């Protein structure tokens, strides 16, 4: 049974529930208490011990139902199978046992698998499939390309060679029997294929997801396909979560052992300076204040979309975010992003300022006229854009003033460094006034950029 539990934990990891070794130990202790008799209680037990959020509870519940919907291999025979060496080609012991039980009807000259199929003993067949699966270590399946090989391995382990021989032998002497066997073989193939697909669903999800996320993280944000946008949002949310965990430290830190003499004296003035109450020194730590200016024209729009999503899901880490979007002119979009879902918010922003040709000079002028006071010496200003201003006046002087007022001025450019300065790109001119200039085209680069910005406040 322990083997089954381990397989279930692996399946749970596949379903996106993070099961650490310690948690699996807890779960096993809990299961030892409640036993396997009542499936509903067992399910509750797993939900209590393994899943730690509501989402995890949901996916673990699904995983549990899927996992226990297939017949479990009986305990004794699976152990027997492990101790047995892999005797793939021949008849395996279970099949023999079943063969003895049912080998009365169809003559003794066919193999055990054939006898089993002819007897149409469904439980015996599914048990044999389960045993063969564990012999072929089906739970190691990771990618959908492996389906064929596992199917073959399982069928071999069940003794399909012998069955083929049987069919060949019987074709001449007993065509009706051969036909029945052939039909049964086709059914068996179908059943095994289903079993393998289900296993892939159970165990392969984690790996497939990791692979996909890895690819997504390094894909250029500006050119991902519409169907991937949703997945990309999930990746961004993951990144946001990671950043939150890393940086959401308390702002005030008590420095134990450092007496704040002035405050202690003041507090104890009533007792003539005898220090009944002590005051200790504290360290203050600022949370980042961010002003983000995002180009939402043409190719940069998508990157801005993800960037804004990331910045606005960092509530615990970032004190105050004000975001502005521009192409031809500039508006503040903080409220839209706070009140609406990411899709709707982006739609509204695009309808207001999107799709124009970008005019950096005009947009900077808008910002200076309307919101320059938003920048304090604690603020980090982030400009996200390709700096392609359609040969209009770049107004780099405004950028200089922004840089002077703020703590840091960071420019994130989705284009590669190679093309900065070519065509209508004003990047070199702007770059002189920025504290940091980075390329920022993929989710990974985005994560690094934001993490660096937040880290300067720690």
């Amino acid at each position, binding site marked *: 049974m322990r083997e089954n539990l381990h397989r279930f934990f692996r399946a749970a990891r596949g379903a996106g529930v993070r099961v650490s070794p310690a948690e699996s130990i*807890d779960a096993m202790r809990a299961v030892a208490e409640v036993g396997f008799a009542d499936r509903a209680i067992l399910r509750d037990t797993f939900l209590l*011990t393994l899943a730690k959020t509501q989402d995890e509870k949901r996916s673990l519940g699904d995983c549990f139902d899927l996992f226990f919907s297939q017949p479990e291999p009986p305990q004794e025979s699976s152990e027997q199978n492990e101790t047995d060496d892999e005797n793939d080609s021949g008849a395996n012991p279970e099949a023999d046992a079943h063969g003895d039980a049912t080998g009365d009807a169809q003559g003794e000259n066919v193999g055990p698998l054939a006898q089993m199929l002819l007897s149409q003993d469904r439980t015996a067949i599914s048990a044999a499939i389960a045993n063969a699966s564990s012999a072929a270590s089906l739970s190691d399946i990771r990618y959908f390309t492996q389906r064929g090989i596992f199917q073959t391995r399982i069928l071999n382990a069940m003794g399909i060679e012998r069955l083929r021989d049987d069919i060949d032998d019987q074709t001449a002497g007993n065509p009706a029997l051969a036909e029945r066997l052939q039909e049964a073989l086709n059914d068996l193939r179908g059943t095994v294929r289903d079993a393998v697909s289900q296993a892939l669903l159970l165990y392969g999800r984690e790996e497939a997801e990791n692979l996909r996320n890895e690819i997504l993280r390094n894909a250029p944000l500006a050119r991902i396909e519409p169907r991937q946008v949703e997945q990309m949002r999930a990746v961004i949310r993951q990144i946001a979560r990671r950043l939150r965990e890393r940086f959401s430290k308390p702002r005030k830190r008590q420095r134990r052992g450092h007496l704040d003499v002035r405050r202690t004296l003041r507090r104890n003035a009533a007792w003539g300076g005898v220090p009944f109450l002590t005051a200790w020194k504290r360290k203050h730590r600022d949370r980042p204040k961010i002003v983000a200016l995002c180009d939402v024209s043409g190719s940069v729009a998508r990157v801005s979309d993800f960037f804004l999503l990331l910045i606005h899901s960092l509530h615990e880490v970032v004190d105050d975010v004000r975001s502005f979007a521009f192409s031809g002119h500039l508006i503040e979009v903080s409220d839209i992003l706070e009140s609406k879902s990411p899709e709707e918010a982006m739609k509204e922003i695009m309808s207001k300022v999107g799709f124009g040709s970008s005019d950096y000079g005009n947009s900077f002028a808008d910002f200076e006229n309307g919101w320059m006071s938003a920048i304090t010496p604690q603020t980090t200003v982030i400009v996200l854009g390709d700096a392609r201003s359609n040969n209009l006046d770049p107004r780099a002087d405004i950028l200089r003033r922004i840089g002077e007022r703020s703590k840091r001025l960071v420019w994130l450019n989705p284009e590669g460094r190679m093309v900065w300065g070519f065509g209508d790109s004003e990047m070199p001119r702007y770059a002189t006034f920025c504290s940091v200039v980075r390329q920022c085209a993929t989710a990974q680069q985005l994560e690094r950029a934001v993490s660096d910005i937040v880290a300067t406040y720690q």
Partner: protein
Amino acid sequence: MADSRPTTAIEAVESGLAAQGYIASRQIATAVYLSQQIDKPILVEGPAGVGKTELAKAIAAWRGLKMIRLQCYEGLDEAKALYEWKYAKQLLYTQILKDKLGEVLGEAQTLDAALGQLHAFGDVFFSKEFVEPRPLLQALEQPAGCVLLIDEIDKSDAEFESLLLEILSDFQVTIPELGTVSAVAPPTVILTSNSERDLGDALKRRCLHLHIGFPEQRLEERIVESRVPGISQTLRKQMVGFIHEIRTLDLKKLPSVSEAIDWARVLVLLQASELDHEIVRDTLNVLLKYEADIEAATPQISAFIAKASRQGVFS
């Protein structure tokens, strides 16, 4: 392991809690049973007013244990949660014992000798007598065990969580001057959270994670029945049905179980025999706590009452 023992034990938990007026779902009962068996704290999450705190009270009452409650808030630190040196008492004692100290040290001729004699007395002023135990330490010191309720853990700071880790996994705390204090009898620990912020993985790992959502209609009827015995069956069915309809709306704050109980009390007090438009409109402020929510729900009242009454006919 395939015996019916756990099932009956879980049912015993259920009926035990029910005797204290807490109607638990099967999952809650399983969690309580497991936490007792494998000595793990329960982390209860869920919207406000579904009975997270009540659960701890009910367990304490059922087992006849003392309940120690630690209400978390921002800025809560170990001095308020764990222990504190009775600084004023220490100071007072040194003042009173001044003469005594003078006697002890009087014979010593040099500073070194005086220091040596002081050392011989040990850490008199940092002994158990000068420790002021706060809820967490109190809970460990209960000889019969207790129910420790750490309420709204999500309101506290992240560093306070780390402070809890030692208590939650090993039921002990380390006081630098005194050493490690272990629990006399491991307390039953219940942590509650409104999910205002994500708790750390380390904390979650040490707990059984129980999510209490809004109960099903049947269960809620039983809860109302046990809490407000005076209410008639038809009215109970109607009002619970009505609340379930309200919960389908997109509101700022959905009415939860505590509001349902309050409303039932109000209806009994007003001697209503069944729901009608007028009485619902007048008492809606018991259920909904925001003006905007009340405005959103008011036009639907009649439809919801009709729906709730229809349900009552068929079930």
